[in-house]
């Protein structure tokens, strides 16, 4: 009866996404289960060593010297590519984000805290630029080109320019790996949230009158949805003290024998809780087909249309006398 947790690589076990998508008290890094071990494994995979860390320190000196130019270069490229917008409303803020993010790549200790900080910055970028990661990947391309140019231009200042560029490339891949995971998790959270909303919206139990509920079912019904709608109905029967429920299947795409059996079970379960059920929206032809297919509809009250069903429901309710909660049970 609880929602399934989204699958994700390196995801914390048993963690459910909260409504706002963030886990209070847990960083994204913790939720992604990125530990010191994970980080070391990824570095080893990329052959990222202490030598690379030292070379990146050299790149940082270079990059800091040309920081403003670099940021302008990145910013201009993004603005040019981003033809659909009216223009950046907050250029200073955007440039600040770009500087922090791209120039921050060469400033780290490349430990777990570094990853933590990178993930935080990715969040900021996503807020500014939206959920599509393709722009971001493209900007990395530009970053590499821009830094490559600066490295070439530095000439003799660097011991081994090619190795230095290799280091930049490695750290780029390291960073992209974590950012990619973060995007994936956010996507999964969004999908999960949307599915939850859809599930809640698609099976509302409505109160028509005292002790009378209506469950309109719309769309495709698979076993999971059928179970969910049955649960919702049963809880509603208890909560609202319903004695009659109308289950309308007019909006159900295809009522096959599987769906029909789910409906029959729902009707039987409602009866165990003292509520009579009327199924509306089943045409005579569909009902006959179902019977031919071996579905036992004998215990199910069916009425062709919703209005007729509600009228029948009211008859049932009042034939049984007024609400049982009245002390002297007139009737």
């Amino acid at each position: 009866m609880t929602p399934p947790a989204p699958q994700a690589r390196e995801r914390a076990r048993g963690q459910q996404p909260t409504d706002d998508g963030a886990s209070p008290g847990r960083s994204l890094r913790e939720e992604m289960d990125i530990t010191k071990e994970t980080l070391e494994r990824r570095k080893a995979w990329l052959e990222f060593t202490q030598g690379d860390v030292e070379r990146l320190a050299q790149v940082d000196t270079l990059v800091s010297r040309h920081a403003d130019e670099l940021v302008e270069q990145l910013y201009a490229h993004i603005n040019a590519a981003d033809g659909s917008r009216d223009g950046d409303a907050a250029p200073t803020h955007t440039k600040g984000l770009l500087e922090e993010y791209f120039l921050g790549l060469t400033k780290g200790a490349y430990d777990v805290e570094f990853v933590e900080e990178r993930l935080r910055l990715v969040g900021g970028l996503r807020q500014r630029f939206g959920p599509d990661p393709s722009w971001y990947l493209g900007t990395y391309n530009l970053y590499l080109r821009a830094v490559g140019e600066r490295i070439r231009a530095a000439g003799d200042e660097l011991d081994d320019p090619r190795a230095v560029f290799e280091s930049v490339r490695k750290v780029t891949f390291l960073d992209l790996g974590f950012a990619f995971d973060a995007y994936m998790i956010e996507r999964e959270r969004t999908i999960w949230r949307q599915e939850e909303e859809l599930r809640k919206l698609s099976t509302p139990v409505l109160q028509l009158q005292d002790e009378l509920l209506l469950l309109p079912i719309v769309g495709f019904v698979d076993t999971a949805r059928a179970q969910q709608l049955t649960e919702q109905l049963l809880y509603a029967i208890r909560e609202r003290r319903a004695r009659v429920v109308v289950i309308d299947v007019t909006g159900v795409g295809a009522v096959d024998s599987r769906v029909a059996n789910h409906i029959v079970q729902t009707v039987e379960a409602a009866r165990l809780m003292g509520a009579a059920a009327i199924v509306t929206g089943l045409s005579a032809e569909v009902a006959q087909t179902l019977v031919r297919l071996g579905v036992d509809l004998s215990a199910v009250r069916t009425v062709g249309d919703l209005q007729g069903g509600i009228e029948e429901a009211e008859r049932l309710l009042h034939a049984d006398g007024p609400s049982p909660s009245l002390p002297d049970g007139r009737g």
Partner: protein
Amino acid sequence: MPILKQGDCLIASVQDALSDEELRALQNDLAEQVGRHRARGVIIDVTVLDVMDSFATRTLQTIVHTTRLRGAEAVIVGIQPEVAFALVQFGLTLEGIPTALDLDGGLALLRLGASRSRSDGHE
């Protein structure tokens, strides 16, 4: 298990998960008390139960039939959503046994049955 008397109805409220012996004891107690008090109705309240197996449902069915033979009608009340769901999945529908949501519902059902039989002129 305590069996309370309310008017001409007997009310048995299940307190805890019932063992097979307790179920049989309930069956015997009710049969005896229906006769002794000349009760017209019996309510078995299973609100507390979060699980019911086929033995429990068979016993309840037996109780209902036996009390009918002694001139009383029995109603099962308080089946919880999870239990109702599980029962129908196992095909245990308690066919022919009156049910109601709760005690109030059960009493109303019994009174209704009684007034109907009085106006029909037969039981």
